[in-house]
């Protein structure tokens, strides 16, 4: 029996959340070890499993993988969520790179002082509304299909849903001008594995709060 993937990160979203979403959507059970102390982090460093001294770290198929995008690409391919050919994979790469940029902005905002944080959030909402979401609305409109790429569920759909929910946390009416994205959100949320992940008690993490920021700063010393 294949060992479960093991995730090493803080007990929060950060750069690990997209990985949790992808595994959950693929119906893959995974274990987590949460970094809470500097000592734990130093042990990981000493064990030599962090290539650039950074987390996320995911142990999977005998490999200690770091760098969230590398991990995501590997998982998408492994669980058949990466399109059927090079051209589909390319489109998925373009879409996920866009949504990931947006979500990383959100993750980084948590660490800024209050005024800058508010400015970041405002910029994120603006970008979502004017740069990213219109693109996906148009993609869905142009092909009229249920999923973003190849009429088939892929990593791009999972990540778009994740981004939509994250931006909605900053601005509840963000989808008001995007009827197809509203339908998309409902449709993808109802996929059984995702529905399960969206329930309380799942491994999905809440938005970053003061405590989370403090733990990360203490562990990574910045």
């Amino acid at each position: 029996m294949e060992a479960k993937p093991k995730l090493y990160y803080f007990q929060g979203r950060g750069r690990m959340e997209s990985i949790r979403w992808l595994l959950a959507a693929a119906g893959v059970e995974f274990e987590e070890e949460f970094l809470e102390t500097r000592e734990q982090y130093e042990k990981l460093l000493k064990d030599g499993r962090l290539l650039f001294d950074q987390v996320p770290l995911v142990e999977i198929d005998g490999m200690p993988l770091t760098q969230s995008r590398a991990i995501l690409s590997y998982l998408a391919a492994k669980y058949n969520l990466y399109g059927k050919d090079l051209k589909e994979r390319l489109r998925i790469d373009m879409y996920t790179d866009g949504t990931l940029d947006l979500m990383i902005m959100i993750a980084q905002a948590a660490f800024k002082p209050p005024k800058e944080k508010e400015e970041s959030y405002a910029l994120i909402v603006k970008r979502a509304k004017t740069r990213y979401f219109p693109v996906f609305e148009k993609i869905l409109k142009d092909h009229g299909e249920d999923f973003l790429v190849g009429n088939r569920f892929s990593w791009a759909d999972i990540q778009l849903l994740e981004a939509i929910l994250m931006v909605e946390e900053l601005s509840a009416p963000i989808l008001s001008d995007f009827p197809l994205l509203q339908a998309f959100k409902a449709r993808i949320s109802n996929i059984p594995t995702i529905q399960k992940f969206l329930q309380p008690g799942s491994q999905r993490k809440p938005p970053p709060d003061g405590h989370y920021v403090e733990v990360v700063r203490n562990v990574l010393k910045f």
Partner: protein
Amino acid sequence: ENQAIAVMAGKPVLHYSDCRGRMEAVRWLLAAAGVEFEEKFLKTRDDLERLRNDGSLMFQQVPMVEIDGMKLVQTRAILNYIATKYNLYGKDMKERAIIDMYTEGLMDLDEMVLHQPYLPKEEKEGNLAKIKDKSRNRYFPAYEKVLKSHGQDYLVGNKLSRADVYLVKLLYHVEELDPSVLANFPLLKALRTRVSNLPTVKKFLQPGSQRKPLEDEKCVEEVMKAYI
């Protein structure tokens, strides 16, 4: 006109300013793969707006590469496509994952490096110190260790991949900013020499190639005017 001919001939067309920035990694990879390409340089705000208005830029941003009848955006997606197409992405999923991991580390370093010329004066010194620190203490030691661990000529699978090409690009670039940075990395220096001697890369390193020089005032001014 050149562009129409390039499209007919099947050459990729790169849309960006006449500077390194985020496009330089793409230029290196195409060059290493022996792929001829054309460039259309953005010089003014109008050039960028024109591309935006004709729907060529998915997220309103460059780099954009026209290739195989498509308009690709997002540097990673572009590099992934080229690397796959020209067999510079490992032999299987696991090698691809390792190559991705190494590439992502290089992208993190490149983020600091490519921003350097465009930072306000008061931030330049701090960023340069960061580049030096991270290159010497985080990134270059990691890649030196990889080469030492297997003793092979290339980073992954004993074969040239996009990871080697990108690493060599950065070795040159960081050395331009920090001349003694490679002093303690003999294996990285050897890799750089080895890759630089490959016929395609050798050609790219000659004067007159499409490789761009370190950003100068003119480049920075142009980019600031066009994009900001």
